[in-house]
């Protein structure tokens, strides 16, 4: 092999390594997002950021806007009623944390559970679920009202993947919105109940 060929080979090797590393770096948003969940969350932007003013239909069939809840803290998450894995755990966790909050603090917090299943989670089903979970005045179980779930998921930074078997894999993060309408904290899914309660109390 001639020295020229050797140098060209080395340069091509460096170029291949640099372009490959660059591609992986860009693909993972600077090595910070290796999963679809973390990618969606990081892509939505750093915290704090303004929460999107989404419209939704609550468990009573009323169309409302997220902006109408300003003045209170709002904990937003997505779920679907027929889920047998993460959603029941998150809903149960929220019920426990919410019911354990002192009344004065509970008045400052609302929970907005948005369904990602537009077919099965009808208003009636959401109302039934709301009753099962304690019928708290400050807990809204809703369907997105306008267009689709896409805007909600994109602007919050939630990944939703409907599978062929009918189940829906989705981010189970909890988004805390402050009274001025900014997302100030994202709690990871299946956090410890006591810890979530303590963290929430700091904000209320």
């Amino acid at each position, binding site marked *: 092999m001639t020295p020229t060929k050797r140098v060209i*080979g080395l340069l091509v*090797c460096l170029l291949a*390594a640099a372009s*490959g590393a660059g591609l992986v770096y860009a693909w993972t948003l600077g090595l910070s997002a290796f999963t*679809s969940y973390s990618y969606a969350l990081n892509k939505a932007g750093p915290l704090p950021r303004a929460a999107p003013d989404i419209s939704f239909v609550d468990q009573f069939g009323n169309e409302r806007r997220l902006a109408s809840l300003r003045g209170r803290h709002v904990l937003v998450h997505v779920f679907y009623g027929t889920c047998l894995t993460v959603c029941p755990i998150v809903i149960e966790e929220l019920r426990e944390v919410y019911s354990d909050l002192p009344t004065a603090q509970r008045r400052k917090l609302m929970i907005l559970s948005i369904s990602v299943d537009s077919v099965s989670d009808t208003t009636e089903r959401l109302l039934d679920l709301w009753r099962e979970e304690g019928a708290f005045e400050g807990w809204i179980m809703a369907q997105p009202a306008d267009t689709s779930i896409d805007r909600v998921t994109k602007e919050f930074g939630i*990944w939703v*993947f409907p599978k062929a078997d009918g189940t829906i894999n989705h981010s189970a993060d909890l988004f805390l919105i402050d009274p001025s309408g900014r997302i100030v904290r994202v709690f990871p899914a299946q956090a410890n109940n006591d810890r979530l309660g303590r963290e929430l109390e700091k904000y209320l």
Partner: protein
Amino acid sequence: MKNISKLLIVFLVPVVLLLPRIDAIFSATMPRKALAEPFLLLTAGWALSRLSLSRHISAFAPSAVVAATLLFLFWMIPRSIDLTQIYLGTNVLYVLSFFATGFLLSRYLPLLPGVARTAFALYFSSMLVALGLLYSSQSTLLCSAFTLEDQHAFGWMLVALGLAAYLLVLASVTTWLVPPAGSR
């Protein structure tokens, strides 16, 4: 003529894997999609390199091995695997990448010096074990297209494969380094 028919069979592997019915079978579980399918494609790529008559340029051997490794790494990222389940184009890239990886490794790895080959093999098998441990130990779902059980099964299979490859490399290096009985 015989070679042409063999070439056709080799090229048929990626095409068949992209057929919706076949793809559905491989996409059903994570071990099938991220282990069995790449294995088939790597083998097809290897077969292609044995059959093709084109000249290889040894100066590009390190680049080809680096490119093949990076392609492999890219498709082990959970988000990359997820997207193969959503977009047909990404799935095509996935299939072609592993096919090309098999071809490049088989064609250019033997051109590297023995020490470089051994270092690469040890690095590659260690990478498989590390990736396997990552996938098997996580209690959260990394690939949204599959289940947690799938993910753990895939992780343990990667660990087993990586360890087997590592031991194989060590055994061949030992055989290579130890002089035959009777020699000085």
